[in-house]
């Protein structure tokens, strides 16, 4: 009986929610921006090619110094690069393959990573032999898909194939908070730039993007308009919205304050899944990497593609804009990373 009541209430609430969301839909992003000058071209090309991985590049993360980056690959290697010179400054071999997640710590002194080992580990970069100074932060019951430091070097947020996200204390390896709500593998997460330490968004194979209150562990908003796995999620730089990239070949922009999808970035000729997304510094451009090797650049306000950038010889698996917005770095299954500026 109780179960029936609950199912009934869920249905009623979903209807009410849709009504509420509809009420304030007094405008349309794309229509409202018709008078704004379109971006007609972007002068971006490959400036650096980072060669050194022997397997598919799966993840990359910029240091706050805007110069160094860390990348991981499916053969179990972690490399730290000087992106200005393309020199490799550290090479660490992990005891696992498919290192799907990596993150540079805010101070630049540590990198966190993990993958099929189900673990999130941290390496100190300033030590002589980082590999011997490895520290285990936390373990999931399935693969580690994504990780990010939470405002300082002391906390790491992880997302996993076990469909949960967990906030860990680095020093003690204790779980601070766990986040249950996804009905499938978590693929990506991003911390809010404006509500830092309080709000993050995660997305995954249940086609949904969940917004979480970090302190209570409660999911506070849920967006599920994608038609296939969501592979990537990134906050709009003001923190008011976020974008997702999905296997359904579209990217979608969701606004938190209006609580709805406000734009879709897709085209009939774009057929392949989108694996990675990020914004330019002002949020005007959306960079999206696809399985057909292309880096597409979208005008966020017009939902129009302004450039198709070719260079990679296999799927683009990850991408990130430099913290100061000077360039975008892509990683690919072709084993290279490229810096576009």
């Amino acid at each position: 009986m109780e179960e029936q009541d609950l199912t009934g209430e869920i249905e009623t609430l979903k209807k009410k929610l849709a009504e509420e969301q509809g009420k304030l839909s007094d405008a349309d992003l794309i229509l409202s921006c018709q008078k704004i000058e379109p971006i007609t071209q972007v002068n971006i090309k490959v400036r650096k090619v980072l060669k050194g991985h022997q397997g598919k590049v799966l993840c990359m993360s910029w240091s706050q110094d805007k110069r160094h980056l860390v990348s991981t690959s499916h053969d179990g290697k972690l490399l730290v690069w000087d992106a200005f010179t393309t020199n490799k400054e550290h090479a660490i071999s992990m005891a696992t393959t498919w290192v799907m997640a990596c993150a540079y710590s805010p101070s630049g002194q540590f990198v966190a990573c993990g993958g099929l080992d189900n673990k999130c580990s941290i390496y100190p970069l300033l030590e002589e032999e980082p590999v011997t100074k490895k520290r285990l932060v936390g373990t999931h019951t399935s693969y580690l898909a994504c990780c990010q430091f939470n405002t300082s070097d002391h906390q790491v947020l992880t997302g996993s194939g076990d469909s949960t996200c967990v906030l860990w204390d680095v020093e003690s390896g204790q779980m601070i908070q766990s986040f249950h709500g996804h009905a499938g593998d978590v693929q990506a997460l991003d911390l809010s730039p404006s509500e830092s330490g309080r709000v993050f968004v995660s997305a995954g194979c249940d086609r949904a993007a969940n917004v979480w209150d970090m302190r209570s562990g409660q999911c506070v908003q849920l967006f599920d308009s994608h038609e296939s796995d969501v592979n990537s999620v990134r906050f709009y730089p003001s923190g008011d919205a976020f974008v997702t990239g999905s296997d359904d070949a579209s990217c979608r922009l969701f606004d938190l304050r209006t609580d709805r999808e406000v734009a879709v970035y897709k085209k009939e000729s774009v057929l392949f899944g989108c694996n990675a997304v990020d914004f330019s510094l002002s949020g005007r451009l959306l960079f999206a990497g696809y399985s057909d090797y292309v880096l597409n650049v979208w005008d966020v306000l017009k939902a129009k593609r302004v450039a198709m950038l070719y260079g990679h010889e296999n799927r683009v698996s990850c991408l990130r804009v430099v913290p100061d917005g000077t360039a975008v770095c892509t990683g690919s299954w072709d084993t290279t990373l490229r810096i576009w500026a």
Partner: protein
Amino acid sequence: MSSIAQQKKIVEQLRAEASMARKPVSECVKDMIQFMDSNKDKDCLVSGFQSKKDNPFQEKGGCSVL
């Protein structure tokens, strides 16, 4: 988690979501455009670099005075 506990959680979340305060889309669009405008000049991938030398990823070409 049992299915009842799970459903209770969903109900809780939907109740909270349904009662949250929302802003009209028009206001959010305005804020978004304003944010872009005020950060436009700093956005090198949109506005480009003032000179090639400002691009830290540009290959250094030609001669330099030692």
